[in-house]
C-alpha cells in the first residue's frame, strides 16, 4: 500500500513538473529546435543583451511591485472597513469585493479597456503605464482583502483596546499594535498580488495601449514571429525566482506557526 502511494505521488509530481523541466533543459540547448545539440549558455547571455526584453522585465517588476504595495495598503484598509460592518451589509460588501476574483480576466480586461478609452477621450490621455498599474491594483486588491480579513477576525480585539488604554490614539494603536497582528495576512496578500501581477497577460493586453510592454506581452508577440530559445531561458529564470519566493514564504509560515503553537 505504501509503495503504491509513493508511486502515485511520484507520478503526479512527474506530470506536474515535466513541462517545466523540459523547458529548463532546452534553455541550455545549443540549437533552435527541440533536438538536443549540446550544452550552451548563449541564450542566457543573449537574453541579457536584448534591450527590449530587459526593458519589459523592468516594466513587469515595477508594475508588480507598485501594484502589490498599493493593493496591500488599500486591501488592508478595506478589510478593516468590511469587518466593522454588521450582518447583511458585511456579507454584501464582502461578496462585492469577491466578484472581481470570480469574474473572468477577459471580462475585467475588456471592461477596463472600455472605461479607460472613454476616460481617455474625456481627459485626453492615452493608455500606457498608468492604466496598466491601475488595472493591476484593481484585480490585486480583493486578494489582499481575502488574506487580511481572517486575521482581523481572529485578532484579539482587546489588544487594540489595551493600546488605547495605554495612551495611544486610534492611529497610534493601529500603527504600533494592530498592524503587527495583521502582518502575516498582509504579507501573503502582497505576495499573491505580486505573483498575479507578474503573471497577468489578459488584463495587461487590453489596458496597455500601443507601446507599453510587459514580459508576458513581449513573449506573446515574440511567438508571432519565431520562437527564440531566449524565451526558454527567460521562463526558466522566472520559474527559479518564483520557486525561491515560495520556499521563503513556506519557511516563514512554518516559523510563525511554531511561534503560534508556543503561545498557546
Amino acid at each position, binding site marked *: 500500500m505504501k509503495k503504491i502511494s509513493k508511486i502515485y505521488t511520484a507520478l503526479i509530481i512527474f506530470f506536474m513538473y515535466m513541462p517545466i523541466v523540459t523547458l529548463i533543459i532546452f534553455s541550455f540547448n545549443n540549437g533552435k529546435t527541440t533536438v538536443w545539440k549540446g550544452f550552451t549558455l548563449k541564450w542566457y547571455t543573449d537574453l541579457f543583451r536584448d534591450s527590449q526584453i530587459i526593458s519589459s522585465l523592468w516594466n513587469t517588476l515595477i508594475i508588480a511591485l507598485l501594484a502589490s504595495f498599493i493593493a496591500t495598503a488599500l486591501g488592508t484598509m478595506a478589510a478593516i472597513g468590511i469587518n466593522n460592518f454588521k450582518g447583511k451589509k458585511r456579507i454584501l460588501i464582502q461578496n462585492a469585493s469577491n466578484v472581481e476574483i470570480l469574474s473572468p480576466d477577459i471580462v475585467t480586461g475588456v471592461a477596463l479597456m472600455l472605461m479607460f478609452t472613454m476616460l481617455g477621450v474625456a481627459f485626453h490621455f492615452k493608455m500606457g503605464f498608468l492604466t496598466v498599474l491601475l488595472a493591476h491594483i484593481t484585480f490585486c486588491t480583493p486578494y489582499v482583502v481575502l488574506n487580511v480579513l481572517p486575521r482581523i477576525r481572529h485578532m484579539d480585539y*482587546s*489588544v487594540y*483596546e*489595551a493600546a488605547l*488604554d*495605554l*495612551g495611544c490614539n486610534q492611529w*497610534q494603536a493601529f500603527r504600533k499594535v494592530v498592524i*503587527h497582528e495583521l502582518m502575516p495576512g498582509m504579507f501573503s496578500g502582497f505576495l499573491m498580488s505580486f505573483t498575479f501581477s507578474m503573471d497577468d497577460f489578459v488584463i495587461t493586453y487590453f489596458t496597455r495601449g500601443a507601446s507599453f510592454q510587459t514580459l508576458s506581452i513581449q513573449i506573446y508577440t515574440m511567438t508571432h514571429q519565431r520562437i527564440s530559445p531566449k524565451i526558454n531561458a527567460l521562463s526558466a529564470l522566472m520559474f527559479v525566482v518564483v520557486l525561491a519566493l515560495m520556499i521563503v514564504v513556506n519557511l516563514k509560515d512554518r516559523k510563525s506557526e511554531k511561534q503560534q503553537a508556543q503561545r498557546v
Partner: protein
Amino acid sequence: MTTKNDVIVSLKDIFVQFDGEVILNHIDLDIKDKEFLTILGPSGCGKTTTLRIIGGFLEPEQGTVTFEGKKINGLPPYKRNVNTVFQKYSLFPHLNVFDNIAFGMKIKKVPKDEIKRRVKEMLAIVDLKGYEKRSVSKLSGGQQQRVAIARALVCDPKVLLLDEPLGALDLKLRKNMQWELKQIQQKTNTAFVYVTHDQEEALTMSDTVVVMNNGVIEQIGTPTDVYNEPVNAFVADFIGDANIINGTMLDDCRVRILGEELECVDKGFGQNMPIDVVIRPEDIEVVKPEEAVLKGEVTEVVFKGVHYEITVMCKGCEWIIHSTEGAKVGDKIGMKIIPFNIQIMNKMFLAEKNTFYADVVSADKEANTITVHVEDSEFEIEGQYFEPETKLAITLPPSALSIAGDGVGHLDDVYIESVIFKGEHNEIILESDKQKWLMQSDVDEQVATYVPLKFDFTKAEFRVMEGENET
C-alpha cells in the same frame, strides 16, 4: 479639586442597553481613593460593562461619569488617568516584557532613563526581576498576568481596573495571585476596581464589595457587612453558604419561621410582613431536641476537613449546618440559633401570587375555550368562557408556573433573574417584557438565561375587569 471623602470616580444614574436589552439599570457607584473595590455578580449582571464605562470603552446612554469631580463622559480611553488589566491579559505578542511594560511611557515620550528605571521598579513589584528580555509568549499564565498588571500600573493611574484577571489561572496560582494583588495594591497605593464572579476572591481581597445582579447594584458594603447582613436573598445566596427560608415578621424582634416563633434583633419591618430569613450554617448549634425550638432529623453528614456539613430535615425544609462535631444520619437533633444570628431581609418579590392582564381575542362557547392576548403572545385557555374583548385579570400561584421543557411555552424568552433555594424548593424570579414573575420549582435553573414560560390554568383565578385601569 477633590470631592468629599476622597471619591475619585463617581458613576451617577448610569443606564446602558443593547438591542433593547437593559444591561445597566440606573446605577450609582462611588470609588474612593486607594481602596480595593470589588464588583461581584453572576455572569451577565453588568459588572464588566460597568468597568468598560469607567475605562472609556463604552459610552452610557444616560448618566454621568466623573473623575476627580470633573465630568469625563465622551473622553476617549487614552485621555483618562485610568488603566485596565484585561481578562485575557492582551499583551502585545510582538514585543518583549520590557517593551510591553514600557509601551505606555514611550507613547507619552517619557525620557529613556526614566523608562528604564520605572520598568525595573515595576518588575520588582510584580516579582519578575530580570525578565526584561523574555518574549511574552514564552511566559506562564501567572507571569503574563503580572506583566499585564505591571504594564498598566507603570503608567501611574489613579484607578486600576481589573476584569476577572485570575479567571484563567488554576486554583493554587489564583490563591497566590490574590495575595500578591493585595500586596501590589498596598505598595502602589492605587485604587483597584476588581471584577469577579468568585465570592471568595471578593471577600478576601476587598475593602468594599459591590454585589450586582441583573443590571442593578443589590448591595455595597465591607466584606463583613455583605456576609453578615445581606440586604436580600440574592446577596445571601450568592455570598457564602446560607439557609434562606420564607418567614413572617410578626412585630419588632419577633419572627415566625416554619410555624415557630423566634426572637431576633431586627426592627422596623412592620407587623405581619412576609420576609426572607437567612441563617448561616456555622451559626446553628446542634443541641438535644428538647433544648431548641426547631427540631429535625439528620439526613446526611459530609466531612469537609475543617468542619462537618450536616443536612437536617425540619418540617419539610432542608437545613445545612456546619459543625466541628459530627452527627449520625437518623439522629434527632435540635437547632439552636441565637437571636443575633437570625438575619431578616425584605422580600425581593413582594406579592405571593402572580397577577397579569389578558384580552380575550376570541371564544368558543361549545368547546368552552378562549383565546387570549398577553404581552406579545396569544394562546388558548381551556375550561373557561368569557365574551370576546373582555379584559381579564388572571392570578396564578407560584406553583402554577413552569419552564416548558419541550420549548413551547405561553410566553417566550422570559429572563431568569434569580434562583434561590428556600429549603423546600427553589424560588425563581423571572422577568418578561412587562412584569416580573415568581415561580416555584424543584429543578435548578440557570440564572441569566432566557426560557419559555408555561402556565397551569387549572390553578388560576379569573376576574373580569370592568372599566378598571390595567395598572
